[in-house]
């Protein structure tokens, strides 16, 4: 239990340490500690050096102090010897006391070393000297020449010894000074190197930190820009990212996904709306075309039922009168009207359209004799019952060709219907010989009124050929419009001339499934 608690705590600590702000805090704390330690080192080195410097001069100071006091004692001693005055004796005693105090500093009490042994000897010598003079001055010893000589000799020894010590001390001091200088230089160099190292390490750390922080931000910024440009399929992944950066990446990915989803949703909605709108427009256009066709049909027919019935009666009368030609004519005309009567707002099959064309041609041939050479040819493998067209498509096209190319010929002309198939389409060609159809008429048929110039429109509307001519253009235009609407293609119908033959070609795609309604 205890172990797992510590493990959990350690895991939490480790996770915390991965965070950027913890790393930053740690770095700065370490840096400050390192700088403080460097300064502490400098300070302690300087302190030690100052202390050593003090030591260098202290020993010399001590010797000088002692020797000067020895001189004072000697002077007072000699003065007393000369004067025998109590004042001189007191002065001697005072100076002796001062000397003893000063001497204590040389008393090492058995702690000998090579550096201080001479001080010990001097201490003993001066102590001996003090004792000797004291004995002489204070009457403990008789003043003799030998005694005075001894005192003088001892003073000389002390002086020589002190000078020797001072001389050696000077050499030692010089050496110490050089050592100190070297030490100071070394310490300065060490501290400078360490400070430089700390500085370089700090700069590197700062660079790494700033790169570590700015690089993911730049990455995110770039990704954000791409999203703004419309590329929504983006995400940011970095296995090494942890802490705040990792959190930022995760949040960005969530945001990008959300945007992506929303945009997809919007696109889908728009596509649907566009499709609906297109459908609506198609329907409206279809209705409009139907209305136009109906209108033109209605214009052409006063009372279609009355006419149909009338024609039928006429046909029966002709049959009763054995007028086969008239009967045939009237029957075909009736068929034409009947086909028309059933409305234009539905589709039909190609075979029915061709049948309608046959009726129309029969009527026309009856009217105009053999001036129309009509033929049909199609591949019997093609199932024309399955080919769907808008109702009243072929007949207007045939009528258009007749009026614009065959009708004006005295000898008449050919009208042919060919049905073929290629890899992608059924090809229904309506051919006519005769004159070339004027381009303005072709434009009037193939192009939308908004694309025609005013002159062309007026010419078409005010055609000298009369209303029939105008109506045929209107009918073809309507048929073309309806074909385009049904197959949603502009190139479903086109008019061309090739080898003095006029062609109206209908291309019906094989893969379009349209029901006969």
């Amino acid at each position: 239990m205890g172990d797992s608690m510590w493990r959990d705590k350690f895991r939490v600590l480790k996770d915390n340490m991965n965070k950027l702000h913890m790393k930053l805090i740690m770095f700065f704390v370490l840096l400050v500690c390192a700088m403080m330690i460097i300064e502490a080192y400098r300070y302690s080195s300087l302190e030690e050096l100052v202390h050593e410097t003090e030591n260098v001069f202290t020993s010399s100071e001590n010797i000088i102090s002692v020797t000067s006091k020895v001189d004072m004692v000697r002077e007072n001693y000699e003065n007393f010897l000369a004067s025998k005055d109590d004042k001189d004796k007191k002065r001697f005693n005072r100076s002796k006391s001062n000397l003893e105090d000063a001497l204590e500093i040389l008393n090492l009490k058995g702690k000998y070393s090579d550096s201080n042994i001479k001080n010990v000897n001097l201490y003993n010598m001066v102590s001996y000297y003090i004792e000797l003079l004291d004995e002489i001055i204070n009457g403990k010893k008789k003043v003799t020449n030998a005694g005075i000589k001894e005192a003088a000799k001892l003073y000389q020894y002390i002086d020589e010894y002190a000078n020797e010590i001072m001389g050696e001390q000077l050499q030692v001091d010089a050496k110490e000074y050089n050592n100190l200088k070297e030490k100071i230089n070394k310490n300065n160099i060490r501290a400078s190197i360490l400070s430089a190292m700390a500085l370089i390490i700090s700069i590197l750390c700062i660079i790494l930190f700033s790169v570590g922080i700015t690089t993911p931000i730049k990455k995110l910024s770039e990704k954000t820009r791409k999203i703004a440009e419309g590329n929504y399929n983006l995400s940011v992944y970095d296995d090494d990212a942890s802490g705040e950066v990792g959190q930022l990446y995760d949040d960005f990915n969530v945001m990008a996904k959300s945007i992506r989803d929303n945009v997809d949703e919007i696109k889908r909605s728009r596509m649907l709306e566009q499709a609906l709108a297109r459908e609506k427009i198609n329907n409206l256009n279809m209705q409009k075309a139907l209305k136009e066709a109906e209108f033109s049909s209605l214009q052409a027919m006063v009372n279609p039922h009355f006419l149909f019935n009338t024609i039928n009666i006429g046909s029966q009368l002709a049959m009763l009168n054995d007028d086969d030609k008239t009967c045939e004519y009237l029957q075909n005309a009736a068929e034409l009207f009947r086909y028309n009567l059933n409305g234009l707002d539905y589709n039909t099959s190609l075979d029915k359209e061709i049948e309608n064309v046959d009726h129309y041609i029969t009527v026309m041939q009856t009217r105009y004799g053999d001036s129309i050479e009509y033929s049909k040819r199609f591949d019997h493998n093609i199932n024309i019952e399955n080919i769907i067209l808008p109702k009243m498509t072929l007949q207007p096209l045939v009528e258009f060709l007749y009026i614009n190319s065959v009708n004006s010929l005295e000898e008449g002309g050919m009208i042919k219907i060919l049905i073929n198939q290629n890899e992608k389409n059924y090809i229904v060609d309506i051919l006519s010989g005769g004159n070339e159809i004027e381009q303005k008429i072709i434009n009037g048929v193939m192009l939308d009124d908004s694309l025609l110039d005013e002159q062309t429109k007026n010419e078409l509307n005010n055609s000298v050929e009369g209303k029939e001519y105008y109506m045929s253009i209107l009918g073809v235009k309507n048929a073309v419009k309806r074909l385009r609407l049904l197959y949603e293609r502009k190139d479903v119908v086109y008019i061309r001339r090739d080898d003095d033959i006029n062609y109206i070609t209908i291309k019906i795609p094989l893969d379009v499934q349209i029901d006969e309604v």
Partner: protein
Amino acid sequence: MSEMSNKVMRGLMISIIVMSAIMVGLSINTSIEAFDKKEEQEFKYHFQVIVDKSMEKNNRDELIQGCKDASKDKGVYIEVIEAIDDEHKAEIVDKAIYSKVDGLAYNVSNQSIATKLAKKASAVDMPIVNYGISAYTDKNIVNIHMTPYAISSMMVKSVSIEAKERKLSKKDLILVLLKECSTKDKNINNRLIKGFSKGISSKYKNNVKYIRVDAEGYDVSSKLKSQIEKYKKARIVVCFDDEYTNVASVIYSNKYKKKMSKKLTIIGYGFNKNNQDNVKDGKVKTLFNVKNQSIGYHSVEALVDMKKKTDVDIKKYMPLFQKIELNKENEVEVKDILVVK
């Protein structure tokens, strides 16, 4: 941050920590050094040892080393002072007395000066060791040295053995070269001769020829050579001086070259670098030396005993004698020989 930069960051932080540790270590080291400097040892006694500045460097160093070894063992402080001559030594002794030094060791060969100094020191109850020639003695003074008599007595044993090995005939000579440049040398030589003649085997007594040569420094080579030329029958050459030992070995090796060992044997005294090489090269068969280290050691030992008022047994302080020759593996071997008076 990438894995690489994380690693680098960790490395840099560790560097900061290591650097700080180095700093702390340097600070502590400096403090320890400083602390070490300040510590001084407490000693029981303070002795002064006066050494001749003219003493051969090796011998001097050995003597001082012996004193220092004894000082470590006995817990006393040794102050080594170099002196130029006996008068200088007298002054040093005077100063030592005023400095209340606990004891002195010196080598004063001048009898009158030695006596004077000894009396002075004795007056203040200061123990003295004279590791020079015997002089005035009392309860505070010990003489530690090898007498010329003792030296020659030790060396003559090797001479006798060598004479027997060489099967000397009556005409063959045992040449003893003695340095005699002063009266002092003369006195020493007399004692050497006394010891030698007493110690030599009676069979070879008449083979011995003593040659006193008054030569020092640059003169030694030419004068020795002229003497050596006179005695073509010399089969064993004995020298009691280190310089003579060296020069004689050079002269004879130049004369006889590879045949030297067949022709004669040199037995010498004085353990310096040249003589050591001579032994190694086979020019000198046996070299004798008083172990100066033992003189130094015993001097301090004696001073401590005198200071403690322990009974002083002179035999205890006899210095060691050294015998240097090649062993069977042709390596220079130094043997310590205890000389009992």
